[in-house]
């Protein structure tokens, strides 16, 4: 039976970000209670491909997070059991024409100044890296720092690695935040009773905005839907994470309309995963054949050999999207005791460890490993309240 004893911190959300926050807080000596209304990895974590990418990020605060995260993931890979399936497979971004190649070259040059390793691959060398790529591509860039993990195991094994300092309360939904006389956070009320702690970390992912609301603060996390198409198991036909150059533009876009770009990668278990689509349609779980058509068309254009391969399932998830595409990480000055660790959009798996490290530093009063000002949770102006009619 999980106890309801007070702890040093309550983490709301048992996805990979919540798990990493709990792990690093436990590592720093804190006792942690993790509460989730569902199971471990039941939300967006369970719907992710497990990308740890630097290749798709412009120089800026998110790339700084990602670079630190790649180092942390390498450490974690040695520490966590092999089920986490950490694989430093490298990313390969390809361009079909010369103008696309020029844009990639310019983008990579800026990334290299920020510390990213990017190697130009001429068109006639692409098949050394990916023998089944379509012929006639202009070239591409190889990003050896890109890696992949199995997201659900990443979350589950991080929680286990925290040992006795982490207590799990699954199947309990947070219905209110408990506060003291000065408005300071004292814990949470769940469907199974009260849990007490002087700090609460909002790691509720796509539902982080709702939790913030319970604390009376504004954090505009919106769902950005994505589909992944999964093929029957295959011998390794795709070795890297391979994507077309327009993916970067799609990731950076704020448009609500449907965007798709081909992202193809193999997995240790055999199936090939095909992404990526982005659209803002709320929490609509309806299958979109148009998305599937575009994903299949994009993947077979990059890898014609996949044409005869069958898709056996597709799944969807809701990326937690904030308007400026940066996550909210750190203490919320509007609600003393509340910290946020959400809004990572499609990069939550990759950025989880660095987020956890920052949160643990904030909880223990240590210096965060990087400047967290760009991620401050109160950076979005509250919408003008309209008087009730």
């Amino acid at each position, binding site marked *: 039976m999980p106890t309801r004893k007070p702890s040093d911190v309550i983490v709301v959300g*048992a996805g990979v970000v919540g798990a990493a926050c709990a792990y690093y807080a436990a590592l720093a000596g804190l006792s942690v209670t993790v509460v989730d209304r*569902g*199971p*471990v*990895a*039941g939300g967006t974590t*369970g719907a992710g491909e497990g990308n740890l990418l630097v290749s798709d990020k412009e120089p800026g605060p998110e790339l700084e997070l990602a670079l630190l995260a790649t180092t942390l993931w390498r450490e974690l890979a040695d520490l966590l059991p092999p089920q986490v399936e950490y694989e430093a497979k490298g990313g390969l971004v390809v361009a079909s024409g010369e103008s696309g190649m020029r*844009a990639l070259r310019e983008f990579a040059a800026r990334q290299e100044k920020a510390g990213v390793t990017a190697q130009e691959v001429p068109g006639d060398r692409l098949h050394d890296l990916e023998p089944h790529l379509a012929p006639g591509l202009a070239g591409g860039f190889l990003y050896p720092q890109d890696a992949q993990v199995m*997201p*659900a*195991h990443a*979350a*589950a*094994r991080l*929680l*286990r690695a925290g040992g006795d300092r982490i207590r*799990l309360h*699954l*199947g309990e939904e947070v219905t209110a935040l408990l506060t003291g006389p000065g408005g300071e956070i004292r814990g949470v009320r769940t469907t199974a009773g009260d849990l007490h702690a002087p700090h609460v970390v909002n790691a509720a992912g796509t539902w982080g905005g709702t939790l913030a609301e319970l604390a009376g603060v504004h954090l505009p996390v919106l769902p950005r839907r994505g589909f992944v*198409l999964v*093929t*029957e*198991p295959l011998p390794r036909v795709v070795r890297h994470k391979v994507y077309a150059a*327009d993916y970067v*533009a*799609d990731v*950076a*876009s*704020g*448009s609500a*309309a*449907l*965007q798709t770009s081909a992202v193809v990668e193999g997995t240790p*278990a055999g*199936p090939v995963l*095909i992404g990526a689509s982005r659209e803002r349609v709320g929490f609509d*779980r*309806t*299958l979109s*054949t*148009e998305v*599937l*058509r*575009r*994903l*299949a*068309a994009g*993947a*077979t254009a990059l890898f014609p050999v*996949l*044409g*005869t*391969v*069958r*898709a*056996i*399932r*597709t*799944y969807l998830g809701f990326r937690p999207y904030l308007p400026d595409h940066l996550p909210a990480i750190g203490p919320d000055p509007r609600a003393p005791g509340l910290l946020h660790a959400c809004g990572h959009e499609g990069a939550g798996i990759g950025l989880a460890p660095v987020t956890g490290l920052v949160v643990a530093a904030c909880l223990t009063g240590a210096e965060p490993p990087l400047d967290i000002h760009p991620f401050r949770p109160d950076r979005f102006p509250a919408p003008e309240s309209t008087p009730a009619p």
Partner: protein
Amino acid sequence: MTTSPSEPGAPRARNTRDDTYDLAVVGAGSAGLAGAVTAAGLGLSVALLDASAHTGGQFYRHPAPALGAVRPEALHHDWSAFSDLRRRLAESSVTHLSGHHVWSTVPEADGTWTVHAVTGADGAAERPARVRARALLLATGAYERQLPFPGWTLPGVVGAGGAQAMLKSGLVLPGRRIVVAGSGPLLLAVASSLAAAGARVPAVVEAAGYLRYARSPRALVTNPRKAAEALVHGAALLRHRVRVLPGRAVTEVHGTDRVEAVTVSRLDGDWRPLPGTGRRIACDALAVGHGLVPQIELATAVGCATRPLPDGTLGLALDDLQETSVAGLWAAGETGGVGGAELARTEGEVAGIAIAARLRGRQGATGRTAGLRRRRDRMRAFADVMATAHAPGPGWTAWLDDDTDVCRCEEVPAGRVREAVADLGARDARTVKLLTRAGMGWCQGRMCGTAVACLAARDGVAEPPSERRPFAVPVSLAALAALEGTADTPHPEAP
């Protein structure tokens, strides 16, 4: 070729907007056939899609004509009802699209439906096909529920429904001495077919106790045909000296390369095997099944509401005229809960009348179907009694060793599922799948879904697996890519 003139060389799916059918029916078993011919008889243009080359579905599965079966009806009761439907189909204007594997149905903005199928999926020339219709009737039937046990992956262990299907379509027996086991009314039918076809059936091992039927005498009395059916099977079993062993289960299969014997154990009221009661029965095959699971993924993919059934499965929630919670989408037969061919036929007819009334803008379906609906409700009540009587008890997982494979596709043993629940924070079939790969393989959890859900349930009572399975059949990427697309959305921020 065989049967109706509309079967071979059926017209290709119409592909233009103007060629929208009034009704598309998915599934040409009892429910679908009845719905299609009823609606066509009321003046609707109807397309009837089915994966098989023949009509009849699973229940009226029959040999390919090339096998030269003289009397395919010998293996069926109620064959006349089917031949009647088949005759009506041949005389109707229904477009029968055989060999169409439907993988998705999509509601369009203008209120019509697009049915996506692939043809030739069994061979090399796989091609996408599309049918548009103003209304949709899903009659996709059910598939067999399996509960694993030590040794269930040995050659010689077949599904009870599968054994019946092999017999009906190929006139093949899975062995010479066949134990029939599991739970549900199908077992008696399977055992009597196998015995009639010449196999020795040393025992029918039924996990439930038949006493549970006695708790609902009213449903029994008002369904005399069902009682008669049971008597027919019972008499056949007596004639072939087949023992029925209620309250017992096959808890282990023995053999090295194939089945040599099974251990049958007594169960307590929760289906937990009672220690020391195991008895060996020699056999060379085991036909096993635990009832049927409604095949509803096409409907749940578009958000249709479901209802939990008394046997722990999920069926579609339907209104009094067979419409789902999604307007314009009707369902009939096993999709609303397993109840047999006669119920399916009745529901198909109700749906056909209701759809015609809706499309023709007329009231009156309620009045015209009053008698049919009364019959349906009576048979549904009986189906619920059966489902309750044969619901797996929560103790059945006790006959699983930790090293018994639960998921055959991905070779995931029970112990790994238990670990995911106890140590890793899984609480449902979905997270078990993510953490163990159980259900991720070729069958997409159709085989192991029930077992995984039961093992994931902490209090022993599994929630019916509610996860959506968007592809009703696997589809090649080339076929997906060839779907008619909409114009690309411009990328505002793209260079």
